[in-house]
């Protein structure tokens, strides 16, 4: 084949650039814009919600206030005179009595103006769990009397929805991550053993996974969660929920790993390793399982949103986490009736954040899958 790419040159040694598998994966991943965007969003979520929630959230998760079910205070760019100003500010809230509904409602009061400052001093918290500080990314001046900055409004106990979304994200994302890690470990090891040894061990494990996957998982979750005594402390409940989720979902992963191991078991590299005396343990853990790693990573990344959604669904039904723990599902639990939707629709603001998170994970996982398969596609 001839190519028109410049003048004919004398044949010279072409440079051989040797590339490891992982650098090939990274290069291919980078080309997929959606996946990169997804990855960045995921990282942002983890940064904001898990690593430094205190910094990004203007209020603590459970700080009640007297502003019950207040609407969002929209950010405006005006100054005291009403002209355009670069400094963002919010208008204050005033309570009103709605006689027809017999309800106290809050309305925005244009007379009051609270400017938003960045890197502001607010409620104290412990950054990274142990550094005491009270620095927040943004907020209103605490010194001003009655200053509030509820960007997404408040819930029925006067808690800031925006902050709760961030803190809620911490719990939801942790469950997602920890749950998947547990599933991963359980599923990979069991699936590998099942595929590697075959025979009775395989049969038993296979029957177990079939049973677990035949069970529609959410009803099972729900039943198991309902079994958790209401009296348990929230951390124990949290741990239990994660355990339940992981324990039920490992079946699917195990089945996939088993299939992968089955197909790799007879490959030449395994026979070669065996032929110079590699023990079963070594074969499994140093050869076969690492060979399945790329698939496992993809499957796990794509499983995290499933976990997050499962917890959200459970808590939303009242069967999972309960207050005072705050997770996205718990926040939705409050909106679980028509009345609340009618009067405080801003409580639904958590929904786009959930969707975005799941979306990002899916894009990331999809991109990883394409990248890990260097021979496929374009």
């Amino acid at each position, binding site marked *: 084949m001839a190519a028109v790419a410049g003048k004919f040159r004398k044949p010279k040694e072409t440079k051989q650039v040797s590339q490891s598998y992982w650098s090939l994966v990274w290069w291919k991943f980078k080309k997929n814009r959606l996946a990169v965007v997804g990855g960045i969003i995921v990282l942002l979520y983890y940064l904001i919600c898990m690593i430094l929630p205190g910094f990004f959230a203007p209020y603590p998760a459970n700080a009640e206030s007297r502003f019950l079910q207040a609407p969002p205070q929209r950010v405006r760019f005006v100054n005291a005179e009403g002209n355009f100003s670069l400094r963002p500010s919010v208008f204050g809230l005033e309570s009103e009595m709605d006689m027809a509904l017999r309800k106290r409602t809050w309305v925005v009061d244009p007379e009051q103006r609270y400017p938003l400052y960045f890197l502001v001093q607010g409620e104290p918290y412990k950054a990274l769990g142990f550094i005491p500080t009270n620095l927040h990314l943004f907020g209103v001046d605490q010194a001003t009397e009655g200053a509030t900055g509820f960007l997404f409004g408040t819930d029925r106990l006067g808690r800031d929805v925006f902050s709760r979304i961030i803190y809620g994200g911490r719990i939801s994302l942790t469950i997602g991550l920890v749950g998947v890690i547990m599933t991963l470990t359980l599923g990979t090891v069991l699936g590998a053993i099942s595929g590697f040894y075959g025979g009775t061990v395989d049969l038993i494990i296979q029957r177990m996974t079939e049973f677990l996957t035949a069970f529609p998982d959410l009803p099972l979750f729900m039943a198991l969660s309902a079994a958790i005594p209401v009296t348990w402390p929230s951390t124990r409940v949290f741990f239990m929920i994660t355990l339940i989720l992981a324990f039920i979902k490992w079946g699917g992963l195990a089945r996939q790993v088993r299939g992968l191991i089955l197909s790799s078991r007879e490959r030449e590299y395994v026979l070669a390793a065996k032929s110079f005396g590699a023990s079963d343990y070594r074969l499994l853990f140093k050869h076969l399982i690492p060979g399945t790693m790329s698939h496992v990573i993809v499957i796990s990344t794509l499983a995290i949103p499933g976990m997050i959604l499962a917890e959200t669904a459970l808590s939303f039904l009242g069967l999972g986490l309960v207050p005072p723990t705050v997770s996205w599902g718990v926040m939705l639990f409050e909106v679980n009736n028509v009345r609340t939707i009618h009067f405080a629709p801003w409580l639904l603001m958590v*929904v786009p954040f959930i969707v975005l*998170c799941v979306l990002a994970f899916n894009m990331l996982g999809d991109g990883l899958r394409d990248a890990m398969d260097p021979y496929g596609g374009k």
Partner: protein
Amino acid sequence: MLPFIARRLGYGVIMLVLVSFVSFIIIQLPPGDFLTQKIAELQARGDRSAETRVDEYRARYGLDKPFLTQYGIWASNFVRGDFGESFEYERPVRELLGQRMLLTVIFALATLILTWLIAIPLGVYSAVKQYSVGDQIITTLSFIGLGTPGFLLALVVLYFAVVVMGQDAVGLFSREFKDAPWSLARVWDLLKHLWVPALLGAITGAAALVRIMRGNLLEILGQPYVEAARARGLKNRTVNWRHAVRMAINPLIVILGSEALPGIVIGNALIAIVLNLPTMGPLYINALLTQDMYMAGTVLVFFVIMVLLGNLLADIMLAVVDPRIRLE
């Protein structure tokens, strides 16, 4: 073929027994039982005769017998159509389930059909016109769809219906048909209302299916037999549908049975809870929260039956459609 079906049915029955047994155990897990709750409830209401009625209740529901016996009784009754009695409503479970079972199945079927109607054409288009504008739009939409489970969407829909449109609920029937006997008009009313929840339930499944279809079809379009078919002079459309899509459908049928169906059953249950539809979902959650043992157990078993039947049907369909599988 027949021994295949028989074997699967037998296997399914064993599964059912196991599942129902496990469900029973799970339902019993919460400490105390329904009765202790009920007593507390009755006492709170000031009903002083509660304690005397306890023994009556116990005997009635057989709660004084050992666990295995309880299960045995329930299981043998179940087969005969007696699903036990609901503690909460003090009526036979069967009566309460009534129409809800039928509606659950209809809801699931409608969701299934919608899922396919959406997913197949979009998936095929996406693969055939790869990287076109349409493909990119479809891909983006399917990602969003993957991230938006039915019940979240149901919440949003509820918001619109209630706040924006001023309705007071989203249901499966208009007011006049709610408890009416079956008639053609009622069926039509149902269909008019059904498409909203079915669409909600179909979105996540369709999004996943579109991507799978696209991936499969892309792979198949590169296969030699597709090129060979084109070389015989067939129209592109014929090649794509009669040869390529026909091959791509097979793995989708497997997915239909194993993943799509349980997902639909569950997703619909959640949607039904949000929108308060007259299906089994809301009954189930209520039963769980109140430890209404027989009710919860029965519904769980029915969910599993639906899934198992779906799997079986999918397997049969696969054998019919793919000659490579037929000789077992």
